[in-house]
């Protein structure tokens, strides 16, 4: 691990936002995450890659305690955000999730109007003083999620009436309107065309200046394009976690190499 000096130096320059140690997740008897250690830097885009079913979504959901809603799920280990143990009894998952936003793998707009979908978070958290403020927040969020042009004339129409890709962007808009510090995105571009994908990738890059973004993706190109660090999961293990450039050009583990070159997964 001597080659990592260069990476270490880069990460040292940034603060650690999330640090996870010895994380295990069980769904009943299924051991879905096995002893994962990872440190996620602030103001960075971190990509999770790995074959389907390897536990990317599961690990992502640990970071804002969404696994709490699954009865069968059990999380062990130590996860800290800004040094605070998020699984501590004193931490309220509600406050945590306001800080750690999430875009889910499957688009899940509420059966409300497009406007109300985006305004949902700001209203709950009292982010807008006036109607004008709220309108502004909604517009900005939709613009950043590259949905404004398609949605501006139908803000009062149900969000469920949008196409799959539009719904995905609506969910992104909804998440960023709440202004989280950390944004977890589970395959946010899986249903998007190349143009919308490009716009969302721009958004992700832009978000990096303020937030820490974690993105799950099945597209190697996307991981390479948008992320600074990449974690490769395989069968519940974190096989390799390094600077994106290194993962894609010089992977240390043979499994990473086979996955990237398309041999497993």
């Amino acid at each position: 691990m001597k080659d990592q000096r260069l990476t270490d130096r880069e990460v040292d320059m940034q603060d650690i936002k999330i640090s996870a140690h010895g994380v295990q997740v069980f769904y009943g008897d299924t051991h879905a995450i096995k002893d994962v250690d990872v440190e996620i830097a602030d103001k960075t885009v971190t990509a999770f890659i790995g074959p389907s079913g390897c536990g990317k979504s599961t690990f992502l959901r640990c970071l804002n305690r969404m696994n709490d809603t699954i009865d069968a799920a059990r999380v062990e280990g130590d996860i800290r955000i800004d040094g605070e143990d998020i699984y501590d009894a004193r931490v309220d998952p509600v406050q945590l999730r306001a800080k750690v936003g999430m875009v889910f793998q499957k688009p899940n707009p509420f059966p409300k109007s497009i406007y109300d979908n985006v305004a949902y978070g700001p209203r709950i958290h009292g982010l807008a003083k006036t109607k004008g403020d709220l309108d502004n927040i909604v517009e900005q969020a939709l613009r950043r999620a590259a949905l404004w042009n398609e949605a501006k004339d139908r803000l009062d129409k149900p969000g469920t009436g949008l196409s799959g890709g539009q719904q995905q962007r609506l969910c992104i808009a909804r998440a960023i309107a709440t202004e989280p510090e950390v944004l977890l995105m589970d395959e946010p571009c899986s249903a998007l065309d190349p143009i919308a994908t490009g716009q969302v990738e721009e958004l992700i890059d832009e978000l990096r200046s303020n937030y820490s973004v974690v993105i799950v993706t099945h597209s190697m190109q996307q991981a390479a394009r948008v992320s600074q660090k990449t974690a490769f999961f395989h069968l519940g293990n974190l096989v390799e976690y390094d600077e994106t450039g290194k993962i894609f050009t010089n992977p240390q583990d043979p499994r990473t190499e086979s996955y990237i070159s398309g041999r497993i997964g």
Partner: protein
Amino acid sequence: MSGLLTFPLALLVVLVLCIAGYLLGRRRAVGRVKGDTRALHSRPVHHGWHVVMATLIPSFAVLVLWAFLQGLVSSVYLGTTVADDLPELALPESQREGLEDEEIAVREGARRELFLGNVRVLNEAIYGAISSDVISLPEIEAWDAAETDVGGELRSAGQIAPIGVTPAMQEAALKLYGFERTLSAIGPLLVMLLAAIGFIWALSRIDGDFRARNVVERWVMGLLIFASTVAILTTLAILAAVTFPSITFFREYGLFDFLFGLTWAPAGDTVGVPEGPGGEYESLLGFLPLIWGTLYISLVALLVATPLGLLAAIYLSEFADRRVRAWVKPALEVLAGVPTIVYGLFALVTIGPFLQAVVGTTIMPNTVSVMTAGVVMGMMLVPFVSSLSDDVINAVPQAMRDGSLGLGATPSETITKVILPAALPGIVGAVVLAASRAIGETMIVVLAAGALSNVQGLEPNPFGAVVTVTTRIVAVLTGEASGFDSIDVLAVFALAFTLFFITLALNLLAQRIVRRYREQYE
């Protein structure tokens, strides 16, 4: 001889033929292709079933037809055997005086009907006496009605028989008896014959190429279609049964007077009813006081059931852990299965006196009242509302909850801002269904709403007694006085008709709402 040829025996024969036909049909089919079943167009079972159907369907159809037509045929027969110029059917000279020909014809027609009715009853009595082995047919034939009191003899044999049986009556009754015996001997014979013909015919058709499967499957499909339409047909039959008397009623009483009348006072219950001009009681049959009572009680019931049921559903689907849920949900469903008469008793002996003790006798003179019935009916509807709402709340995808919680919403914000709005149409549907049950509910209101036989105006006091549509139907139909063609009874059909339409409309409304809600997630 005729004792042997009965329908039970015929049924037994048909059954045996069916079983034999199934087994033989299968065997024969296999035999025709020398055991190579792949050479058969249809499977051996299809051939077996084909024989069963050929045996059963025609014979059974005749059996059913026979059962329906027997009565009709014998009454036609009776009509033709009784001569029109029978002396005792003619109106006596003393009564003919001063009557128009038309009127005489009407009166003679009535006499004839009376005579035929007596013959029918006598025939039943003869049949009863003979089949219970008290008197034999020759003995009855030997009686001479001019001397023997035929009716009295039969009554002392334990039968219901008319008074004043004349020789002509006796003769007609005996003819009818003989005819019916023949008829009921031919029937079973015909059934057995048809079964045997079908049996042999179907067996003889079995062959490697015979398409038994197609025939069997067509009949099975017919059966499926029949099963699915029978409920609809029943509804239509019910509708027809209440519609025609209702129309008669509307014509006689006046639709407007019925729908907007403020007094309900059928002449069958004569207490305190104003006398009509002819010195007889006149029925006042206004619908408003009844529907007022019904809707008032239903409203109270819904005001109790909706919040309780909804809150229970929210608790069960969003907060209760699995063990509590496993316990509470079945308990609620048991509550839904309690017979309504039990709720009625509970209302009468517990809730009524309790309410009276709380509000005092000046406001609540009786233990029966709108509140008594409404509160208990509400409790009855709680499991109904909660179970349906629980279903619709559970049908809201988990992804909605995740989406809301993931944005930092609290569980209660998630419920009030996302889940309930999403489930709202379904919940409204549940409440509308509950309303339609409340409107049609009978036992609770019979016991706990009040039993005034006549009412004037609309009772505004929620602690006062009211009458409802359903209680009046029960009261008039179980009352003593009215015959089936009295205006009171016709009015009851109109009540049933109106009730049917109100609940039908509510159910359709609920279905539409629920359907719209389903489409949202598809």
